[in-house]
């Protein structure tokens, strides 16, 4: 963002106040704390993890949770807690990269379609609608059928699969903004295409996209975990949570902790981003707060 964008019209609240507001919203605060803990885990993983996540026989194999291994050990005697801590790195990477792909491509498509109007808009949005109706999982499966299995490919697949959603949201905001007086007067004043798009439309699209993007991280994390669970995403020995769940499947009766903790990690992370997204929405859209 450039400094100019802050001067753009209809800017909701200044950032400092937004953060303060985020803390006043209880769900936002909880979400922020969860996400912050996750980020800290990811950054400090080597310092806080009690064991190396990849070293086998860190303890006896399939040991239930104990003082030495808080979340037990897996079938190779690896420490489950350490693997979950290191897994937060992969999870954050998946979330940001997948959302990065879908957000940037969706934003571009939506802006172009909304701004251009006419045939360009109709054709682009028709394609977006059709892709949207394919559902994300099928697009992701098709991408993986082309690219092959693997965590990076899964992230790309999830990113691509969500583009239609972001394009739709952007497009609908652009349509609203285009009819507002400030935009019409800017057009009348002969502003260039670039100026109209980047100075007028973009800043108004961004707040909503921040909300959608935050919620989108949770969807992306869930989807990636799902693909890894099916064996299409992360591969051994990556301590990816969905993959850990997948390898726990042969051992549920014998070692339920291998199934419980990675699942909890996914659920709490997704919950964190969902709450944070809700909180950000409340901050950015005060009307919602009344609900």
């Amino acid at each position, binding site marked *: 963002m450039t400094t100019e964008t802050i001067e753009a019209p209809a800017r909701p609240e200044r950032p400092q106040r937004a953060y303060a507001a985020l803390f006043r919203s209880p769900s936002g605060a909880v979400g922020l704390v969860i996400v912050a803990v996750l980020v800290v885990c990811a950054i400090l993983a080597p310092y806080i993890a009690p064991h190396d996540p990849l070293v086998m026989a860190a303890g006896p194999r399939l040991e239930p949770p104990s003082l030495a291994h808080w979340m037990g050990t897996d079938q*190779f005697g690896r420490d489950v807690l350490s693997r979950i801590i290191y897994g937060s790195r992969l999870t954050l990477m998946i979330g940001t990269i997948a959302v990065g792909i879908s957000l940037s491509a969706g934003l571009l498509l939506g802006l172009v379609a909304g701004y251009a109007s006419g045939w360009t808009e109709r054709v682009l949005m028709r394609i977006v609608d059709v892709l949207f109706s394919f559902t994300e999982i099928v697009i992701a499966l098709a991408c993986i059928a082309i690219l092959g299995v693997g965590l990076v490919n899964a992230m790309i697949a999830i990113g691509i699969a969500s583009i239609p959603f972001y394009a739709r949201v952007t497009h609908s905001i652009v349509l609203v903004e285009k009819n507002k007086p400030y935009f019409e007067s800017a057009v009348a004043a002969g502003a260039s295409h670039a100026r109209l798009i980047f100075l007028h439309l973009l800043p108004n699209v961004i707040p909503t996209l921040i909300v959608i993007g935050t919620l989108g991280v949770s969807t992306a994390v869930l989807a990636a975990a799902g693909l890894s669970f099916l064996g299409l995403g992360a591969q051994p020995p990556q301590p990816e949570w969905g993959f850990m769940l997948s390898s726990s499947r042969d051992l549920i009766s*014998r070692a339920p902790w291998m199934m419980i903790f990675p699942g909890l990690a996914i659920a709490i992370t997704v919950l964190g981003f969902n709450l944070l997204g809700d909180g950000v929405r409340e901050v950015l859209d005060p009307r919602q707060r009344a609900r």
Partner: protein
Amino acid sequence: MIPDRLRHTGPGALALTGFLTMAAGPALAGDVIWARYGDIDSLDPHRATSTLSMQVWDQIYDTLLAFDEDGAAVPNLAKSWEVSDDGLSYTFMLQDGVICHDGTPFGAEDVKFTVDRAFGDNPSLTMTNWGPIETVEVIDDLTVRITLESTFGAFLPFLADSFSSMVCLSNDDDPDFGSATAIGTGPFKLDNWVQGDEVVLSRNDDYRNFGKPVENDGPVQFDRLIVRTIPEAQTRLAALRTGEAHIAEPPFDDIPDIRAEGDLDIVVAEKTGQNVFWQFTISRPPFDDIRARQAVAHATDPEMAIDIIYGGLSEREWCPIARGVFGNDQDFCQQYGYEYDPDRARELLAEIGFGPDNPLNTTMYVWTGGNRHMLAEIFQAQLAQVGINVSIEILDIGTMNARVREQNESPDDPSPGTFDMMTWGWYDPDILYALWHSPGAYSGYTSDELDAKLELTRELTDEDERLEAVQDVIRYLMENAVHIGLYTPGWEWVFAVRPEIEGFKVGVFLHPMFQDVRLTD
């Protein structure tokens, strides 16, 4: 089965059950449900090589000879045979009154059809194993003569194996044969195959057994055998516990608990003839260099891995052929084997330019099931310690066979060559001929020297001479790090059986037999 369901459901639910199961194809009282981790690849014995396919062919087809309890080939559909003095001509006298599933009598024409088909335009995947067959002649309805180009020591045992299943002539010109239809003379007829879901077989009332080591030589004693695919081990266990399946491979780590509880019987297959081994893509770097192959062998410790995963219940295997197979000798093989020696592995890697700053990156293929993915993860960790970074790809066996061959046939692929944990089960060292005689089953390593050695193992019929020839091949394969034995799975083939099933057994070389099975509930 039914009473079991009643116990768990209220009357309302039961009515609904009745309604819904009707739509979905219900399991009936006379059904035996066998849940397995994977599906068959084909109903056509010439179009697949997987054990899972073979075990279903065993139920639909029969073979000229059969393996007895010790793995010796004995008369079956062929009640007797004569071998000419030069060892090139075999005349088989067939059993009278055997009937194909479509009602046509089984005879010499069916045998000729099967053999000719195996060598036809779209030959059998295991064509090599049939041997150097020159001609098949029908002498009369029940007599057939097969003539070989050269002597072939492993010919008779092959005729007891499922790959030589007798396919009835009535399948000729049926475009659906192998995918939707299959006519044989085995204990079951094919009802239908829903790919990836189930193969439904029903009792063949005309079936008679002649050579298989079972007590009941008549038709099987239940109505249908449903072979269902349930890849997830815990789901199979749940299916067993809730009566949805009668026979299934249980999750390995639950076996001690299952034994302790005593509700389910555990049947372990013995003398599987299976050998799990390393093989490499030799058409391009890094494994075109013997030192890279040797480095992998030195860097991995199968002993430790099988100990962790199978609790010492599978055996370390030094030879390229399984225990119990002619020519297997641990002491002999170990002389040429690769001891676990990470330092030696590092040295070898350094010689070919790999080191801490330049790790060797490659991919290991492993096939699904049998906890092999866990073994692979241990090997991955061991290899990482010497600077070999491996990514694991877990594939079903059919796909993996395809992939390995594709790798060998892509010398110009810029990505590093792969290696894989392959498994073959065979009753005779002739498997080595099929795998490594040019062009080779996977288009892998071949040499003129090896070809000559392999040919010798086929031509020699004197036992001592043949043993020497076989061990010469073993020595060559190991010295050149082409086929490196890892372990003999016995424990990988474990079946948990519900108490109402009696008489289920698995013969040598992994042939499950249902002739004696009775449903007691």
